[in-house]
């Protein structure tokens, strides 16, 4: 090529492309301190020994990879050496395996990365005042309660989209938030509604506050189930995959450590995000092969978040103290054969007492006599029949571990424990078998927990009870019972016939008496309104029936002061009234809103794919809204925390309800007129548009016809209306008139 020399050609692009990168980092070089100081004669033996020591831990190195610096003046080694590893992983492994490794009686290896040493030597020694982070106030996590209209919220999960809505009057039922959460299993509210949790592959994330910012996260990979403690202080997570802590995983109080490997359940502190403890769900002496279905929640919380208990079926109940998560009293409750247990919930009164206790403790005043001591936590457990020993239900106080009441039971197949939500009553549903063990019937053992000596009363039933539910804050309960022969062998198209019965505590006699039985239903679910009184009976999970029945149990009573003046002045059971019936095809979930005014029913795509969607009803069974949406999955009301008003304040409100409701009535009227005015305007506009368009069309078509369809038009015009009068002479009569 004449004129161009080799130097003229610009190779820079090619050079840049094919440049060889040298691995010039020292990441795979370690500095080992604490090596014996030797002279040259022993070098070979030492190097061989060091190499062997490393190889024993599974990191193969050759004596040639070791560089030993020498102090030339003394002719001895300096007591440290450098080792080059094949790669960074080996080096990391060596650090974790051999740091602080005793080499011999006098020498212990101290291993550092070469790069770290470099960094440490370069470290600026002058102390820098750490900059104080600007205090940013956190959002109010309960801001939604301050809604001027007092509306409740609910979350819906459909397809891949989550939406949080306000529920109010039609004009106020707007979208509250539409988050862009991705790749999660499902969503869940915390029990007081403060947080909403999403379950991701990496773990659980909590969101909250007016901006719906992430509030906390818990790194439990492949988490499947979560459970909040009642006061929202702690969170329990479970994954079917045992915990694995990979090499180089993040360490810290918020992460799993190697000690947690193999466990499935983790307990976390919500506020700090710290991991408190992990548990394994598999029991050591469980017969392998027989996999029992896991109980969830696997850890049961005491209502005040002070204890969490876990059962080892057949052996013991282990109660852990919070927040240390140590075993309370350093020993479990050893109970032979224990099958199940439940904590007694705290009623409103208990909570008040507890608060007073705390206050007196803070004040430090010695006025112990004035306040009643708050009730101790209680739990109830049952043990089945073993040879010569009857089945037994035991009421235990905790942490004193005193047995409060015990009841022996015979011919027991199964027990279920149901606490009333105020902790006033406990019902043990006992499935009993006849001597031949062929048929099953049911007893309800009802403990009156607030009375002296915990009296127990038995309600005997002939049928099998499939569902039991206490009225919240009430003295009534409802059961679904069935004598259907198909019970127990469900098949497609089979709808089990059931009876629903209501019972109420009779104050005079102090026992529970049947209020009323509703025979031959298909209902299989009881949903009490959270405020009591109203109850919905639903047929859930059936392919052919999907009825909802809305009942009022105090129909005759005036709402104001009904609690106070509740004496059996009326006929027993006359207050039960059916308010309405409704139908939601394919309903899978039925849930009351926290105020007990509205009921939501939903048909989730997780169960079936027919007519998925949700509906909201008022307590009378009037449909307020219904949305059929493909791939609809979840509907959950946002729970509300306990009211801050005292009993006295609540009574005042109930007394002056008329006063308060007047303003609301005014609001409603204004709203109505507002809505209708808007609607009328919209309709007017639509009609005007349409009419204008029609007028235009008419004009065009007549114009068009005038030119193009001249003939047709002419023909039309030629059509004249001709009126023809036909006189027909039917008869002629001549009359002569004489004058």
């Amino acid at each position, binding site marked *: 090529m004449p004129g161009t020399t080799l130097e003229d050609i610009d190779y820079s692009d090619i050079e840049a492309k094919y440049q060889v990168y040298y691995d010039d980092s020292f990441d795979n070089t370690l500095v080992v301190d604490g090596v014996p100081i030797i002279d040259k004669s022993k070098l070979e033996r030492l190097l061989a020994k060091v190499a062997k020591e490393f190889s024993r831990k599974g990191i193969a190195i050759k004596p040639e990879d070791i560089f030993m610096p020498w102090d030339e003046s003394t002719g001895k080694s300096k007591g440290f050496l450098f080792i080059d590893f094949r790669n960074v992983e080996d080096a990391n492994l060596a650090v974790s395996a051999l740091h602080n490794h005793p080499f011999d009686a006098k020498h212990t290896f101290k291993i550092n990365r070469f790069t770290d040493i470099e960094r440490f030597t370069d470290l600026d020694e002058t102390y820098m005042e750490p900059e104080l982070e600007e205090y940013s106030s956190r959002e109010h996590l309960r801001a939604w309660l301050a809604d001027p209209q007092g509306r409740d919220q609910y979350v819906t999960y459909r397809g891949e989209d989550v939406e949080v809505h306000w529920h109010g009057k039609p004009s106020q039922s707007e979208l509250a938030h539409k988050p862009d959460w991705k790749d999660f299993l499902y969503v869940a509210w915390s029990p007081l509604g403060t947080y909403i949790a999403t379950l991701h592959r990496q773990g659980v994330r909590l969101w909250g506050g007016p901006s719906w910012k992430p509030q906390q996260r818990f790194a439990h990979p492949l988490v499947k189930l979560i459970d909040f403690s009642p006061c929202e202080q702690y969170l329990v997570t479970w994954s079917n995959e045992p915990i694995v802590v990979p090499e180089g995983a993040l360490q810290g109080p918020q992460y799993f450590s190697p000690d947690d490997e193999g466990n499935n359940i983790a307990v976390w502190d919500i506020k700090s995000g710290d991991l408190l403890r992990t548990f394994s769900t598999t029991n050591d002496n469980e017969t392998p092969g027989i996999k029992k279905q896991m109980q969830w929640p696997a850890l049961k919380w005491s209502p005040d978040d002070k204890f969490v208990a876990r059962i080892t079926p057949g052996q013991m109940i282990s109660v852990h103290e919070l927040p240390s998560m140590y075993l309370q009293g350093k020993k479990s409750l050893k109970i032979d054969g224990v099958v199940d247990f439940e904590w007694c919930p705290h009623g409103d009164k208990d909570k008040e007492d507890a608060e007073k206790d705390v206050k007196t403790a803070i004040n430090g005043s010695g006025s112990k006599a004035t306040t009643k001591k708050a009730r101790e936590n209680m739990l109830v457990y049952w043990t089945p029949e073993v040879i010569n020993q009857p089945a037994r239900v035991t009421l235990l106080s905790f942490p004193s571990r005193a047995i409060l009441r015990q009841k022996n039971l015979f011919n027991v197949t199964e027990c279920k424990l149901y606490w009333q939500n105020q902790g006033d009553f406990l019902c043990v549903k006992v499935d009993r078998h006849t001597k031949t063990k062929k048929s099953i019937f049911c007893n309800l053992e009802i403990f009156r927990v607030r009375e002296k000596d915990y009296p127990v009363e038995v309600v005997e039933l002939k049928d099998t009870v499939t569902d039991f539910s206490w009225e919240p804050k009430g003295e009534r309960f409802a059961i679904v019972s069935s004598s259907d022969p198909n019970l127990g062998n469900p098949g497609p198209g089979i709808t089990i016939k059931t009876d629903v019965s209501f019972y109420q505590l009779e104050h005079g006699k102090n026992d529970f008496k049947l209020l009323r039985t509703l025979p031959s239903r298909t209902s299989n679910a009881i949903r009490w309104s959270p405020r009591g009184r109203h109850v919905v009976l639903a047929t859930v999970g059936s392919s052919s029936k999907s009825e909802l029945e809305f009942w009022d149990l105090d129909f005759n009573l005036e709402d104001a002061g009904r609690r106070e003046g509740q004496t059996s002045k009326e006929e027993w059971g006359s207050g039960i009234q059916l308010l309405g019936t409704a139908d939601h095809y394919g309903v899978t979930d039925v849930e009351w809103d926290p105020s007990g005014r509205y009921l939501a029913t939903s048909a989730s795509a997780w169960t079936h794919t*027919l007519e998925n969607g949700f509906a909201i009803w008022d307590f009378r069974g009037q449909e307020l809204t219904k949305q059929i949406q493909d791939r609809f999955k979840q509907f959950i009301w946002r729970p509300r925390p306990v009211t801050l008003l005292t009993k006295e304040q609540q009574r005042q409100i109930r007394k002056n309800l008329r006063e308060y409701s007047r303003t609301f009535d005014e609001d409603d009227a204004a709203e109505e007129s507002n809505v209708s005015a808007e609607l009328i305007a919209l309709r007017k506009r639509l009609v005007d548009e*349409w009419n204008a368009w029609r007028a235009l069309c*008419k004009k065009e078509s007549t114009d068009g016809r005038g030119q193009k369809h001249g003939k047709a038009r002419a023909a039309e015009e030629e059509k004249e209306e001709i009126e023809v009068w036909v006189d027909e002479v039917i008869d002629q009569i001549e009359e002569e008139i004489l004058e």
Partner: protein
Amino acid sequence: MSTNRVTATPRHERSLTQIKFNAEGDLLFSCSKDHIINVWYSHNGERLGTYEGNNGTVWTVDVDSESRFMVSGAADNTLRLWAVATGKCLYTWEFPTAVKRVAFKDDDSQIVCITEQRMGHQCAIRVFNINRDGDGTNQSKEPLHMFNPIGSKATVCAFTLTPNIIITGHESGKVALFNIKNGDEVDNNERAHGDVVTDLQMSKDSTYCITSSKDKSARIHDTKTLMVLKTFTTETPLNSAAIAPIKPYVLLGGGQEAMNVTTTSLRQGKFETRFWHKVFEEEVGRVKGHFGPINTIAVHPAGTAYASGGEDGFVRVHHFDESYFRAKPYGDLEIAD
């Protein structure tokens, strides 16, 4: 909507394909998969006569404005012209494939037909002149115009006000205007519907039309610009849509596909005729009755009755009672027809 009075449930042996009132509304023509075309008195449901001779499902029927001639298209690949009064078949055109849709022009001088795309034959649209002189047996064998619409096949069609322009609905959900002289697509709305267009009915003055589709919606289009004026979205695939004269309503009918019916309950099937407000796009009522999907709906030209034909083989004629005309669910609003 419970303000209707059913006078008649004429019965075919198989599912209905199309029903049509004549211009006066006293006669109701119905065709079905049982090969027979029936004509009924609309006021009492008495059968006036049958038109027999087709040897296959009769897909479509239309009657001229004088109730003199009637045309039918059938799966036996024939298009037939009938004398309404005598029931005689006057003329038969034969094609390579089934005839899916026929329509008379407003002035009765022409008919348009769509033949199915099958067995290597393309979907074709043909226009014939109808010789109204004499007894009607003297028709030209050859079509006046014929063309194959490009792209998705046509399923429904009708003449528009503009000379030589027809409006068509297509399998892809497209609604288009074609010039019949040269087969050019004059205008189209590719996204009119998301699925096959199942019915197309013109307004009284042909300035707008309503289409129904399997995409669960019905739409009102301006026939000149093909602009979508109104959309009615339901939760079930629609087979037919009609415009009610006098009152501002449209009638929609459909239901679960026949193949899915056995797996769902009657309540689920959504076999009701739905009344929607034409301007506000709101549902105002439903009329139950059929126990299969509704295949075709026709409204009496005077707006006093409507008829629906179902997959169940029944034609139900409902006469609106007085309250239907008196009721003003949206208050006093003058709405042009």
